[in-house]
């Protein structure tokens, strides 16, 4: 090779490589009609059954929802719910009856649902001390918890668990009866394993909780470590949206279709002031989760749209064939034509 022998050691000639010459092997797809139609057809084929599957799964979930906040408010207090809910002396017990529409197989999950409750408010979300929850020695870490950090300004008496989240713990209680027979509610394992194990200490006990001037929500058993206070753990896993459900417990027996169950509610939690709603929900769950037709319908709809688009494209391509790479679109050709 003439060139190679001539190449001196100090030659500045760039070395050839496919990388530097930008000649890497590459796949250069373009959206040909075949590609487009195939893609849409595949999506349609993929989505339709998936949507049906989701719908079918969702159909198998049985769900009972009962809104009780208004109904549990005695008529005498209807103009002044605050007085009713804030008073310790009023009777908060409220009985609701629910009808099971279809057979519900265990486990049946009991949820409480709050609407218009901003658990995702920044002030609220921040108002907690994860350190304190984890570690008994960090009880004083109440920096973010104000105003629920110490007992009325006493720095030596930190509240455990501190902060607004814990303070506003949901405290309605539900009891379920089938006829007169109480249904057992399993309140174990309603929280995440990781929370119980790592985020809430097994040797951290509530202290000074709800002992301040203003009592927010539920109280805690001072003798049980936080890791066992699953209601608290569930509550403190803040919800994403102002309308949310949280797991209250599980019923481990089947409920038959058309059975009537009675729910005895202790209507303690104040949603009246901010115009929230309270619901109790019973639901089964399968692989897709709870009852949700949205996903299935969306899948079906999208699949349908794709099918429609695929057909439209086929029609377009058939009705408007045009020579590929037609240069009449070039602006100068257009201009010339215009002239």
């Amino acid at each position, binding site marked *: 090779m003439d060139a190679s022998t001539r190449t001196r050691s100090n030659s500045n*000639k*760039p*070395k050839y490589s496919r990388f*530097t*010459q*930008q000649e*890497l092997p*590459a796949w*250069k797809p*373009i*959206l040909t*009609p075949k590609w*487009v139609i195939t893609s849409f057809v595949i999506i349609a084929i993929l*989505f339709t059954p998936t949507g049906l599957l*989701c719908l079918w799964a969702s159909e198998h979930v049985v*769900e009972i929802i009962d809104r009780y906040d208004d109904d549990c408010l005695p008529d005498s207090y209807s103009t002044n719910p605050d007085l009713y809910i804030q008073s310790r002396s009023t009777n908060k017990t409220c009985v609701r009856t629910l009808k099971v529409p279809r057979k519900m197989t265990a486990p049946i*999950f009991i949820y409480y649902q709050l609407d218009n409750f*901003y658990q*995702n*408010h*920044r*002030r*609220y*979300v921040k108002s907690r001390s994860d*350190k304190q929850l984890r570690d008994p020695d960090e009880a004083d870490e109440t920096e973010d918890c104000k*105003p629920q950090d110490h007992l009325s300004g006493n720095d030596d008496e930190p509240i455990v668990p501190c902060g*607004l989240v814990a303070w*506003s713990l949901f405290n309605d209680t539900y009891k379920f009866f089938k006829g007169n027979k109480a249904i057992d509610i399993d309140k174990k394992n*309603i929280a*995440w*394993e*990781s929370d119980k194990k*790592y985020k809430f200490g097994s040797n951290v006990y509530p202290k000074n909780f709800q002992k301040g001037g203003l009592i927010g929500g539920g109280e805690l058993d001072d003798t049980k470590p936080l890791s066992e206070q699953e209601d608290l753990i569930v509550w403190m*896993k803040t919800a*994403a*949206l*102002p309308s*949310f*459900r949280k*797991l209250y417990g599980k019923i481990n027996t089947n409920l038959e279709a058309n059975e009537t169950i009675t729910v005895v509610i202790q209507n303690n939690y104040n949603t009246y*002031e*901010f115009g929230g709603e309270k619901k109790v929900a019973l*639901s089964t*769950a399968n*692989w*897709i*989760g*709870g009852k*949700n037709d*949205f*996903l299935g319908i*969306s*899948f079906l709809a999208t699949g349908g749209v*794709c099918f429609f*688009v695929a057909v439209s494209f086929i029609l377009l391509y058939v009705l408007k064939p045009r020579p590929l*790479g037609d*240069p009449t*679109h*070039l602006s*100068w050709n257009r201009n010339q034509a215009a002239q």
Partner: protein
Amino acid sequence: MTQLPVALLCSYSWTWSWGSVQWPRQRQDFCRVIFFSGSATFTTRIRPMARTISGLACPALSIPYTGAGLWSPKPNTPTVGFNQNMANLTPTGQPPNTGAAQSFGSVMVIPEMKMGKDRRKKMHLSKMYSIRRSGFEEDHSQIGGPGFSRVVYCNETGGLEANKFQNYADNYVRLTKYTPVTFLPKSLFEQFRRVANFYFLVTGILAFTPLAPYSAVSAILPLVVVIGATMVKEGIEDWQRQQQDHEVNNRKVKVHRGGGVFETSQWKKLKVGDIVKVEKDEFFPADLLLLSSSYDDAICYVETMNLDGETNLKLKQSLDVTSSINEDSKFSNFKATIRCEDPNASLYTFVGTMNFQDQRYALSPQQLLLRDSKLRNTDYIYGTVIFTGHDTKVIQNSTDPPSKRSRIERRMDNIIYFLFFILFLMAFFGSIYFGIVTKDDLDGDRMKRWYLRPDDSDIFFDPKRAPMAGVYHFLTAVMLYSYLIPISLYVSIEVVKVLQTIFINKDVHMYDEESDKPAHARTSNLTEELGQIDTILSDKTGTLTCNSMEFIKCSVAGTAYGRRVTEVERAMAKRIKGEDHFDENDIDSYSHPSVKGYKFEDERITHGRWVNEPHSDVIQKFFRLLAICHTAIPDVDEETGKVTYEAESPDESSFVIAATELGFEFYKRTQTSVSFMEFDPKSKKHVERSYELLNILEFNSTRKRMSVIVRDGEGKLLLLCKGADSVMFERLSKKGRQFEEKTRDHVHEYADAGLRTLILAYRELNEEEYEEFNEKFTEAKNAVSADRDDMISEVTDEIEKDLILLGATAIEDKLQKGVPETIDKLAQAGIKIWVLTGDKMETAINIGFACSLLRQGMKQIVITLESPEIVAAEKAGDKNNIAKVSKNSVQKQISAGKAQINASKSEAYALIIDGKSLAYALNDDTKNEFLELAVGCASVICCRSSPKQKALVTRLVKEGTGKTTLAIGDGANDVGMLQEADIGIGISGVEGMQAVMSSDIAIAQFRFLERLLLVHGHWSYRRISSMITYFFYKNIVFGTTVFLYEAHASFSGQPAYNDWYLSLYNVFFTSLPVIALGVFDQDVSARLCLKFPFLYQEGVQNTLFRWRRIFSWMLNGLFSGIIIFFLCMNSLNPESYDKNGKTAGMEIMGATMYSCVVWVVNCQMALAVSYFTLIQHIFIWGGILLWYLFLLAYGALPASVSTTAYKVFTETLAPAPSYWLVTLFVVIASLIPYFCFKAVQMRFFPGYHGIVQWVRHEGQGNDPEYDINMVRQRSIRTTTIGLTARSIARDHSFDPHLER
């Protein structure tokens, strides 16, 4: 006196005064004294009696007269004299022979020559030039005053010298932006001058306050990464610049170290006052004052290409007094003091005086050698350093290269401002809503959202001070929505551009084998601008042409000779026939070893066969003229006998070479004669012919011709003349027009083939006529008045008439390789090309033809100030009047041109304007009209333009049209233009570095421009614009989800995402694919880019980065964000999301939504990319994978670190089928709109690249050639310049004549 020759015929002595003769102070013991007397020359050797003779007056001296017997016309005795060594003899004594005394014309004293190699340096050449000496003028009175305070003590070597106290700058030249000390503060400052970076700095600082919606570390880290990366890049670039500085500063030069010893030293160590010795072809290390040179009369030739781009050599000459100090040893006792002006940027002025031997001498620019110019044709010079380093004129001239920003980046800034506006708007509305809601929380004592404890709140959420809370919230929101602004955009762009420049630098197709130089992008800022060039402003010499002239054709006695094909003809033939008809081998087969400057091939003339031609006498005269009529100097190699020539300009040397090659070998020039060897057809032998050289009538741009007057061997007086056709034909005598018509035709033909033509003619003079002329001519030459030049030209005008035409020469001003093809390609790409040259109009027009910028049949609009009325006004000399008349004339010509264009739009026009007119055309009141005219013309040539005018024209085009301009040039005279243009390209092929140093990209050859623009430029433009739009897209997707979530959290400022998800979004999960897009994406391959030049219009018309496209992408981002948010929310809330009955909290919702965002933006990328290399696959799918890996790793960290992400993936997301289903569904649903859009666009409204992609795609089908050719045919833009246009025009043309 004792050395009286034996052959003494008569001996007598007399005395005379020497006039201005200076006694040569060489070591030689003998001097040769030459007496000139009419046609005879007498010479004698004498021993100088007094060696100290100097100055103006000399003592009387006796010289023995030896008579004619010692006249020695040995062929290799150089007896060319210097005029200051000559004097008219004025006999004061009475010589015995009165006849002899009367005929004595002059005497010349030159040192005795040593025969051999160094004899040439003793030659005295200054006679051929009319150097004007300077005396003390008014300027000199200012010396010592303000602005003229510099004092230089020459040759003060070692010890404590006066120069040291004066603290002049050292000779170290620093062109770097930073020093190690200033790097940190200065580069940080540069960084935070960018609004976006400053914004992130502010949010970073705010992140340390309780206002922050996220942790401070997570906010600062991306900023640190981004700024750090940019600073590293800056550092590396500056380090490279420092390396260049280092190379220059460490160049070697010989410096006097005392005692007549010169030592090699580095440039940077030079000090003011040092004596340096610069040898042939070396650059001057600083501004020097010329003291002496290897020539006796201390002249030297300087090439100032680096300073003004002019390739002809400049002559410099030292003061007489120092001219004899021309050997190392003579400097041991040299002392002088120079007082001169302070450092300034004016290249052509210099005022100073030198005190030497108690005398004061005036200094002028004639003695000043400027840094970065080069010593040529002179063995060595001695000089003293006057200005060093940053004081030198060339450095004073160089301004900091303006930091250029590309159009796209400027628009990008606007988009960022727009996003800022959106951001603040969002924050503002959020704050208002937040304020209202917060205020609403507390109604007297009644708390609405009691769980927020509005009664006992800090200022940020206090309902009692809701407006304040709103204001604070505004700051929080501004921080939170910062994800709309792509923080990593700038750094990603920088990274991409650096890689793009690496591709440019490494492109083997842009590597020049000859000069061993690859392309070199010096700044990485402008790569995408290369894809948007609308107008190219090109220098000519060294850029389009190699500045080497080759004698290729001639027309003698109406017959055209020369069979070689010019580059242009070949390029055209290739265009028409589609292949190279003139096979390279074909040419080589009948060419002998190539001679530089000579490419003539015609068996009718070569090898002495011209004698058989019909007009052999004319042919003989023709070549004799070529051998005589020039100012070249032969240099005979003693050993081989080969003659080389030193000529002022390459055309001259090519003439002499051609004459030599054809058997008229010019080998000797004395001060009075020109000798050449010639083949004599009668005797069939080579005979010597010697012509006595009487006068040289120099060339200048107004005369456009040069002549010599000689006396031939038979005593006949001849005037030989060569010149431009425009002046020569009118000077022919009636009898001399025998071949005129044919010659004219040939000249037109040559011009169309891109050749430079000269007309050769001669006349015989009679003695009386000559005597009369000589008298007038001498008088004019010796005149000191201002109109000396006019007088000379008037005198010469009279004698140069009634010529007899011999023929015409055609010289190929050799175009650089591939220039016509490149111009053709660029023209097809829709790029306009303007040529701005310092050359004269004829040359420029010739090159215009050669490059196909001009062609026959094109209407030329010539704007010039050489009309009679202007000339008349100039003669009158009233400056105001000249200006007024000129201005009017230019205006009139511009208007006329415009009218002409408007009258007929279908014709192709070319505008040619000269420098003088340009000066008026560029006035504020005419420039817009001028621009309109120029834009209406297919090609524009500005000749005789100064560097400043070049820059002004560039600015006019840039600002007037608002389009992107590219300037390309190779000389320092192009610097202004290069810096003014949007992009400056320096040609690095020739030695000059000045243009390269101020350019943005340096390439070795003009033809690389094609690849640089059509391939690299196109790709870069496409990549950068896609990248930026994509960047905005992905940030808007993300920002939309953040904002929508806000709206569902009563605008409290809580993000759905974990802090680290937020901060790593831009720098981690989505940045690599977009960098891959920016680096690797290709819409079509390089081959197709070049094949379909119309693709380039995408950049020129900015189709990929117009507002429509940008907003479409933003809308796409908005839709995607909305789709992602609502689908995620509705699919997962409020019911359980898995079979364990647990519901999705903020962690799960955030992680799911984030997964969707990462999937969507990466898949969107996959849809947008049209070139999938392995790297693309790795980055796109890797980006998604990375997110899951991150989620795993981050989730595995202790809960105190990972907070809400703790085990979120392993425990809850991964096992839940709904998570995967939602992801799949959301991703596809978000992409469908874009996919539909793209499918329709690709099929029914393809862009330029889409068309080519179709073509490529279809090319794999059955009939590739048909499709490709059809598209090519239809896609080729109808251009009016370039080879294609020329070949088309030629087919249609009926009138072969040039229309003027």
